[in-house]
């Protein structure tokens, strides 16, 4: 996909892009806006159902919260490594970029693994989308699995994107622009987690 370079190459004959952003970067920003509404509406739905239920269960013991903390740490760190990748790419240091991005992808996978461990652990306890072993509102499982599932989907697709872009950048097919936009998306996945962790984990901690 080579649209954005060409569009930039046209700078001589085009009006200057609004916000001085190339189309790709602008589009990722727009996607982020729209996606944050997607997450927003699901989180609001979760809040709606929780407020409307009398028997909400808050099952997370400290181990789960600790697991959540580790996941938060991993994801935040992956954002940092991604930034390393972006800076290196801008400095034109290919191999360094690829190393940083590889590290980011690894951290992303680690996050997913921790998440899935959490899931399997809960499923083992008898949690389902439609089932609550503690006898509380069944909406807990529905909300938890759908929200974290949606986020996990973003993480996994992010990891794939990072790998693809890293390889493409290494081969010289893709530019630092691609690295940067991928980073933008990856940071957004991080930002979403900054809301999911408190709202879905901490608010459901057994206190």
């Amino acid at each position, binding site marked *: 996909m080579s649209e954005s370079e060409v569009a930039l190459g046209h700078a001589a004959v085009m009006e200057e892009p609004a*916000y*001085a952003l190339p189309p790709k970067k602008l589009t990722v920003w727009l996607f982020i806006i729209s996606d944050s509404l997607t997450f*927003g509406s699901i989180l609001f739905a979760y*809040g*709606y159902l929780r407020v*409307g239920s009398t028997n909400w269960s808050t099952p997370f013991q400290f181990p789960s919260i600790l697991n959540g903390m580790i996941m*938060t740490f991993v994801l935040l760190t992956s954002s940092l490594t991604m930034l390393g990748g972006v800076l290196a790419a801008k400095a034109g240091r290919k191999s360094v970029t690829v190393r940083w991005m590889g590290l980011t992808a690894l951290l992303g996978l680690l996050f997913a693994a921790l998440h899935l461990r959490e899931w399997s652990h809960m499923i083992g306890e008898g949690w389902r989308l439609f089932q609550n072993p503690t006898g509380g509102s069944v909406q807990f499982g529905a909300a938890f699995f759908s929200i974290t599932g949606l986020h996990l989907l973003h993480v996994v697709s992010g990891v794939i994107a990072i790998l693809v872009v890293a390889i493409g950048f290494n081969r010289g097919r893709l530019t630092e622009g691609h690295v940067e936009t991928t980073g933008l998306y990856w940071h957004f996945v991080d930002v979403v987690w900054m*809301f999911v962790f408190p709202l879905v984990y901490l608010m459901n901690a057994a206190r």
Partner: protein
Amino acid sequence: MAPNREPGLRFYVWVWIGLLIIAGVEVLLTYQGFSTGALLAILLILAVCEAGIALMYFMHLKYERSTLFWSLIPVTIFALFLMNHFWADALRLIKVRVVPF
């Protein structure tokens, strides 16, 4: 106005530490026995700060033209804010749910 110069990795490390601290504080506060409502308010405020920092520095919003910020963020907040209309009904679910007579 041209985009400002953006800082190097060392600066981002500091931001990263800051975010970690906020996340830690969130967990600490969770166990201070606040009421659910109060805790929600606190956590949301912290989460917004966290997200704001990430947006501004990690996602470079601070180093883009300010017009980008002003055209993206208010719209999003506005749209999400409107969803607060939901609560009027969510709370009613408790008040007027089916009660056996």
